[in-house]
């Protein structure tokens, strides 16, 4: 694979993306919402004296944060519990970009001229994957860093340490890029079968269900966040899915299939 060609595709895709304000909004909006809701709750709790009777359902969960005041434990629970939803950003955003990119090319019939150049299909896909994944990874990391720092400033520095735990740093560095990759590849495979970006995103929307499922399950299971073992198992599972999707993708996206079915 020649990096110069991957870079050329990436730069073109990036230019395309920057000119699409709606898509940029789709990148930024979920990231900000997922961070704003728990941060708002932390600020709300911080602004008031916490009545233990008001803790309600989360009372049983704050026992997971021993040796800290109940108010801070409640904030820690909220801060860490919502972090699972950060995994939705790499699941949703790259798929939106990838489907828009591939289907956009199908509609504009611009795949054939690109494949008529010395560009290899793998280089085309690598450039597209990078361009779709990078905004999501960047957005997730920025939100993660901002989330940890802002909550620490609003409430207590110990919240920052809960956010920047070894488990979550590992998850950010491994699970987030893997989920991004899976999302992009799924977007590309789905896009090879449909001609409308919205349909592709609706089909691809199923990819977020397991993540939401895990987030909800851990809440009801009494765990505020993942442990290292769960993150590593998650890495392995997503890596496996990436491998399977790559196999399907290489079949769906070989040069001849693209030209005879997609253009």
């Amino acid at each position, binding site marked *: 694979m020649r990096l110069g060609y991957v870079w050329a595709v990436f730069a073109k895709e990036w230019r395309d993306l920057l000119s699409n304000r709606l898509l940029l909004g789709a990148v930024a909006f979920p990231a900000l919402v997922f961070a704003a809701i728990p941060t708002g709750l932390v600020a709300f709790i911080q602004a008031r004296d916490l009545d233990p009777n008001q803790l309600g359902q989360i009372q049983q969960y704050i026992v997971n944060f021993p040796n800290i005041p109940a108010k801070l434990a409640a904030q820690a629970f909220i801060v860490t519990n919502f972090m699972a939803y950060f995994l939705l950003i790499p699941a949703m955003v790259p798929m939106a970009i990838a489907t828009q990119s591939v289907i956009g090319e199908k509609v*504009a019939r*611009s795949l054939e001229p690109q494949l008529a*150049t*010395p560009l290899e299909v793998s280089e085309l896909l690598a450039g597209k994957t990078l361009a779709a994944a990078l905004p999501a990874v960047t957005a997730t990391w920025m939100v993660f860093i901002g989330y940890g720092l802002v909550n620490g400033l609003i409430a207590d520095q110990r919240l920052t340490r809960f956010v920047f735990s070894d488990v979550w740093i590992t998850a950010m560095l491994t699970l987030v890029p893997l989920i991004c990759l899976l999302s992009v590849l799924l977007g590309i495979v789905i896009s090879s079968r449909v001609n409308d970006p919205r349909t592709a995103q609706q089909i691809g929307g199923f990819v977020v269900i397991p993540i939401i499922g895990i987030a909800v399950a851990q809440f009801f299971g009494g765990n505020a966040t993942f442990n290292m073992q769960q993150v590593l198992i998650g890495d392995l599972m997503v890596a496996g899915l990436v491998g399977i999707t790559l196999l399907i993708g290489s079949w769906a996206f070989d040069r*001849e299939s693209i030209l005879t079915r997609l253009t």
Partner: protein
Amino acid sequence: MIVVEGLRKDFRTLTAVHDMSFTVGDGEIFGLLGPNGAGKTTTVRMLAGLISPTAGTATVNGHPLGEKTQQIRAFTGILTESPGLHEKLTARQNLAYYGRLYGMTGARLREAVERYLGVVEMSEHADRRVGGFSKGMRQKVAIARALLHEPEVIYLDEPTSGLDPSAAKTVRDFIATLRALGRSIVVCTHNLDEAERLCDRIGIMRGTLLQVDTPAGLRRHGRTATVRVELNGARGPESFVGRLAELPYVNGVQARENTLVVELTDPPHETPDLVAELVSAGARITSVVEDAQTLEEAYLSLVGEVGERDTDR
């Protein structure tokens, strides 16, 4: 130079192209004429290294098809049926992107982009997004894209589609200059007038090549080559019949009112001799016209013949 021998392409149960054999020399424009679905695009895609043939062989500038397709694509320029530009990018950005894909960088890339924007008369629109361009403007940018890297072999699918007559002429003239530079050019078109004006040879195809010849040769297809010589003078045409019948290249002569209808084997080469012979015999010639069908008639006759054969089956 392109050499094609027995090329075939099957898509599952459908045979798109079979038994294709032809050559395109350096500095030659070869036209592929055929109805929709005749296999023109499939043929070009195979030759451009985009899809692999099911059977047969071809070499493009000495590179065998199927083995060095990346190299073939590097010296090949292709104008696809649809311009296929990137709508959100400007004309200049589109060309620069493709230049990079052809391995061009720096000053060489910038100069090529400027030069070809000028060639297709799009310099003043260079920094506008192509999404707002008319069909003709897009076609011009697509033509510039196909030629940007100075390809040795060029495939042009409907090159003047969507262009106004003036722009179409500019493009045709430019294609002619590429021929003069020794490039091998294949033009796929439905435009018979354009094929006749532009192409050195034309292949009429429908799944396979039905006939390959010069435009003039195709016009004579299925007909006796005849020349009508109109005379004006005291001597009637019948007085020349005997003399002309003795000439070795004359296959038959008829006199009709003030006209001689002469059957020849190769009118372009034999007509000057025929005229010289008549003049030396004292004929006063007012016009000489080759009695040929139009290219359209020849095309319809060839394609129709196959259509009828297909229907009979």
